[in-house]
């Protein structure tokens, strides 16, 4: 059977009203569901990571003016669970009581940099990014210097904000 074959000519005013009402009601239901479900999908994507101060090392254990990789144990929320991450930061003792903390994450594409003691440079193994001991870019594709992390002292211990 061909659709609409036996149908009478539409009474266009009533038809238009009903069509409009259907669109409005279905639109309202759709928008409600889209808000509730979309919210549950999108909201966690924009959650910011909470930072706190983590104990790193005693200041006397750091050599002068040489980036030293320190592993910090960071517990954080990971969705429904709590995980303990081991994060590496480079601590550089720049004075008797001054310490700079550099993130070990390359600013190019996020690989892990390491200290090359011979060249006295922080090098990224992925695409040849090179940073000096202040974190400034010396060669390769990284668009920005290594991120500096906030530090403070508590007694003789250095705390890093992560």
């Amino acid at each position, binding site marked *: 059977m061909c659709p609409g074959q036996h149908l009478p000519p539409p009474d266009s005013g009533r038809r238009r009203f009903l069509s409009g009402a259907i669109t409005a009601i279905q639109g309202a239901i759709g928008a409600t569901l889209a808000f*509730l479900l979309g919210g549950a999908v999108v909201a966690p994507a924009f959650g910011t990571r909470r930072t*706190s101060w983590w104990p790193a090392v005693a200041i006397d254990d750091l050599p002068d003016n040489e980036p030293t990789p320190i592993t910090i144990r960071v517990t954080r929320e990971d969705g429904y669970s709590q995980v303990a991450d081991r994060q590496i930061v480079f601590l550089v003792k720049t004075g008797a009581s001054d310490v700079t903390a550099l993130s070990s994450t390359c600013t190019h594409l996020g690989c892990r940099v390491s200290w090359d003691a011979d060249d006295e440079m922080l090098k990224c193994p992925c695409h040849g990014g090179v940073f000096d001991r202040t974190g400034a870019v010396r060669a390769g594709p990284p668009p920005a210097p290594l991120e500096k992390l906030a530090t403070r002292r508590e007694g003789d211990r250095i705390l890093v904000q992560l």
Partner: protein
Amino acid sequence: MTRLRGAFDWLDSRTGFRGIRGHLLEEPIPAGVGWWFVTGSILLFLLGVQLVTGVVLTMYYVPSPEHAYDSVRYVEDRLPLGWIVRALHFFGASFIVVAAVLHMLRVVAFGSYKKPREVTWMTGVILLLIILAFALTGYLLPWDQKAYWATTVTINIARTSPFVGEQIAGLMRGGADLGALTLLRWYAAHVFLLPAALIGFVAAHLYLMRRHGISGPIAAAAGEPKPFYPYQAFKDTVASALVFALLVTFVFTFEVPLDPIADPSDANYVPRPEWYFLSLFEMLKYFPGPLEPVATLVIPGLAVAGLLLLPFLDRGPERHLLRRRLVAAAFVLAGTVVVSLTYLGLQDSPVHADPSDWGPLSLAGREFIGDERCTTCHRMGGAANPMDQTRLRRDPEWLLAHIADPETIAPGTRKPPPGGMREAMARSIVSYLQKVRAGGNAPEPAGETRTAVLVLGAWCGSCHIIDGEGVEQGPDLTNAGKEHDAKWLHEWISDPAAVDELADMPPFNDKLTPEELNAIANYLAARK
């Protein structure tokens, strides 16, 4: 606007989508088809809501006994809007069962299953079974007490099948015991197999409905047929909107239950299935022992076979229900039995303790975690997670051993915190950890109540139960005030032997201060 129309014209010339849309929407609907015929659309709408809410839930759910419960807790407590999504899915399941039964009753009442629509009806019966299978597989997923125990019962019912019972139970478990493999295969069924079957059978059902046209009113009404869109579509849309409004009302009115995490060692949990399986559950009571397969297999099997074969049992052209007395009587009888059994089952349902109700022991435990013996390691940047962020992964025996002697977990690797804890305090901390995991908000006791709570947590929980927590050695203290007043309790707790020579409870007048003794006596006396 013209440009948009141009784009649609182009798309139509390449795909012919307007023709398909026209074919789908312009089905001629006979005159006199009223609001009775909206039940199918309501069902389709609700299935759509289940599908989209289900997809969102799979983004957060983890199908493993280790993580399932915590991931559901996360959706419930911490994911923005998550509790609404879970509630829509939870109540949506019940709504679908109701809508499916109403749709079936409408079809029966109008005799719509008769020639040539026999196969349409049979696909509908299969869809009803698929919907029930969705419900059954769905409630194992949160891995809470109800999930674990109701599924244990379900699998044991399958075991009563003749000849192949053990094999069916094994297939359902996926292994020798109910565990990780069971959860995974029920999850796979719930999110892959059943949706595929559902979509296939819904497509077949709709195709057959269109092939034979809608059955329409019993007595042909005067008037020309009208297209489905917008005339019948308007009724369907309004009905779906009303059902959706009711569903949202349920979401904001009732709480979605989540029991404590599944505990295979719990001998006190009384499992009850969801309300739509309660009649089957209740029926088991009337067929004890060797008669059990009558309730588990014979009666449900006959009911399904009777439904499937209905169009062949009731073959006459007569559609009016009152002239099909046998069919009407059979459905009224079956309906009465199901409703009565469900009612009896509801009367008999045990009241489960709300896992977010904090008893005095868990409240005391919350204060004990500030103890130096805990915070030496359990602190930010310490060797272990802070206590309030600790997720309970170990069994209570391990936790008790660890709390009583923290060094047992890693002998010699770190400086042990000074001293162990008394068993009562350790038990209170375990109670606290269980409550924290169950996600409840704790009240803040103050003054004398707080003093009493701390005394209970520090001393009483190793021998007494209160609010379902503690050890069942001495009397349950939950309603201690019913039998004794504050004066008697004060004397008894101070020195039980002075009240009764045979008392085997130790005296506490040397352990508690006078204020503490007053506080605990008053607190217990007030619990009536």
